[in-house]
């Protein structure tokens, strides 16, 4: 079965990202496909590679990147939500004249249409948020 996952909250602030990660991992382990994980609103903060949590804490961002690499996941940050919160990839940084980008490996920035498409293409869309 194909799952789409929507994450609306940032890491370390709300359990949504942790719940979504556990769900995605369980779905993949069971042999299901995760068509896309879409990060919206504060959820885009899951995609900054500059996160440095304490060593004895889980690294929410790295964990997503590693899962993406292992299973070729499509992790998408909403572009409007990302720009408001200072999440940029190389192209966006250049386009806005910023001196750096900070998107984590495995993530990409795209539009809200990607959420709609994920909802259409997936058998189930599961939302995690506040």
């Amino acid at each position, binding site marked *: *079965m194909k*799952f789409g996952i929507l994450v*609306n909250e940032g890491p370390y602030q709300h*359990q*949504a990202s942790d*719940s979504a990660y*556990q*769900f995605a*991992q*369980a*779905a993949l*382990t*069971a042999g*299901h496909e995760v068509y896309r994980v879409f990060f919206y609103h504060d959820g885009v903060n899951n995609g900054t590679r500059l996160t440095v949590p304490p060593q004895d804490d889980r690294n929410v961002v790295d964990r997503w990147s590693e899962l993406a690499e292992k299973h070729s996941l499509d992790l998408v940050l909403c572009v409007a939500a990302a720009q408001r919160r200072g999440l940029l990839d190389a192209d966006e940084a250049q386009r806005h004249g910023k001196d750096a980008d900070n998107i984590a490996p495995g993530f990409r920035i795209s539009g809200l249409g990607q959420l709609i498409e994920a909802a259409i293409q997936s*058998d*189930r*869309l*599961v*939302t*995690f*948020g*506040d």
Partner: protein
Amino acid sequence: MSLLHTVNKSPFERNSLESCLRLAEDGHAVLLIEDAAVAALDGTAHTETIKNATGRLSMYVLGPDLDARGLSRDRVIDGIEIVDYDRFVMLACEHDSVQSWL
């Protein structure tokens, strides 16, 4: 059409569980996750409402979220099944759609 409803708010804080139980149709499933795990406990002000719902809805609670909050699995209301993430995924598959009550 059978829905899996997920609720993630404590009923002591917000009324999303109450709304969910009011609008969920007979035979639907309700999974209590995150802070809603507290609603699965016996002997609270909300126990009666939940117990009434178990008659017409399939009620589940996410075990890891009980554990994370130090809520004893022994105190869970009879009629609510404790599940793990694997079973959460299975429930999502078994129902036609997943409705998250945020």
